[in-house]
């Protein structure tokens, strides 16, 4: 049944505006990050690592979570429109399959976004004249950022499911990202889900800030993921439909 739900969600995304966001947003840090890097070659001497800091500086801190929020809002908006909630809840599938179907799609789109960002990173690096290919560590950071998206995806799906507004969860994600930056600077990043993105992607640093502590990061992602999924499933099972 899960694969049918995924198939249905995929069908809903066909020719959707969501792909514009997925491909357009990473182009902004690519152009501007590279521009910034080339303007400050005197200070930024870490080659691929320096370019990575410029790429992810604002992307991971402020815009990654709202982007995932945008994907989640879009997926739930279809259910909030007209009387689709009635249709959704009377479908002969378990609500967990519906939720995991949506989460799978969010993860898929996020993975594509991240892959596109990494591709742009390599392209911009080569165009900037950087030697060879990026170090393996940078791919690992990008992957870690994608893993963090699973927890944020679960949280944003919960918010978008409960709030019938399209825009509000995106505003919350931006607020959360700024709060995440402040909390991370206080050294408590693992205790706030929105801090996980910038921690995972190791933005604004040459050295891996999570070196040796990656397991703690993964544990935090798992805990948040289970928590938000459990809350979402409980709401879906217990609450009546407000169509």
């Amino acid at each position, binding site marked *: 049944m899960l694969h049918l739900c995924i198939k249905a969600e995929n069908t809903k995304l066909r020719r959707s505006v969501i792909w514009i966001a997925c491909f357009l947003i990473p182009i902004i840090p690519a152009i501007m990050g590279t521009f910034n890097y080339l303007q400050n070659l005197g200070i930024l001497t870490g080659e691929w690592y320096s370019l990575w800091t410029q790429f992810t500086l604002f992307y991971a801190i402020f*815009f990654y979570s709202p982007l995932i929020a945008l994907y989640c809002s879009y997926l739930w908006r279809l259910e909030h429109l007209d009387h689709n909630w009635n249709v959704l809840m009377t479908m002969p599938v378990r609500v967990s399959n519906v939720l995991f179907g949506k989460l799978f799609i969010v993860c898929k789109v996020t993975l594509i976004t991240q892959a596109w960002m990494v591709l742009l990173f390599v392209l911009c690096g080569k165009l900037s004249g950087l030697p060879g290919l990026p170090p393996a560590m940078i791919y690992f950071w990008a992957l870690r950022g994608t893993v963090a998206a699973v927890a944020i995806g679960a949280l944003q799906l919960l918010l978008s499911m409960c709030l019938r507004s399209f*825009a509000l969860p995106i505003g919350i994600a931006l607020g959360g990202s700024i709060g995440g930056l402040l909390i991370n600077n206080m050294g408590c990043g693992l205790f706030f889900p929105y801090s996980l993105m910038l921690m995972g992607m190791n933005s604004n640093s040459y050295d891996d800030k999570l070196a040796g502590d990656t397991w703690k990061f993964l544990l935090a992602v798992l805990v948040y993921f289970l928590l938000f999924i459990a809350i979402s499933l409980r709401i879906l099972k217990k609450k009546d439909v407000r169509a």
Partner: protein
Amino acid sequence: MKRQHCAAVEFRKERHLKIYLVPLAFLILLFFWCAFSFRNADAYDLAQGYTYLLFQIPMLNCILMPVMLAVIASRLCDMEIKGGTLKLLYTVQSKHGFYDWKYLHSFFYLLLFSIGEGLAIPFCGKIFGFTEALPAALLLRHVGILLLVGAVVLTVQHFLSLMSANQIIPLLVGLMGSFLGLFSMYFPPAAARLVLWGYFGAFLPFGMDWDKDTRILSFYQVPFPTTIFVLFLVFGILLYLFCRAVFLKKEV
């Protein structure tokens, strides 16, 4: 429909939406940001506290305002789009009246936020014990600029929210605006002036000097860019009229 009725109707429509919570939440966030900036402030920092805030807050506005305005405009306009109410509304209200009053309603929340930010700055000064005298004229200028740039950005968001059946487009534009606005602050001034969302930081009253050796921050006053201000004002009015004209031609 009479003017006072138009205003009352807009407020009645959003009775249970609690939209005031959006600017309020962003104001609280702004306050926490300031609190974080001054948590380890020494006497030197406190002696230039207001200057620092008036320099830093516009940068934060570059990130917050485009998304906040996108959220407010989307919340207020989406109710008409989702409910398919436009056809019915035009039987009791003129198209341009609807467009203008809806815009003014969103502007009301921008005004609330701007006043709130104007009050938050001296409030921070009191809380953290700034020793610098409150530059009242610069504070008023800051609020005025925030209102003006916010109003122009709101014009874009309001237009997009009313024109798009799917709110992903205005929100995407808001998100991209935040991104572009923030990055534009690192551009050469001539290039930065091409980015609408970057204007939150275009009228900064201060410039900043950072001494690499002593690691000391100092600020210097910058003359007000009157020509840019007038051009931006004219651009804002023309943009509003253009967006309004396009909306009025839209078939419902």
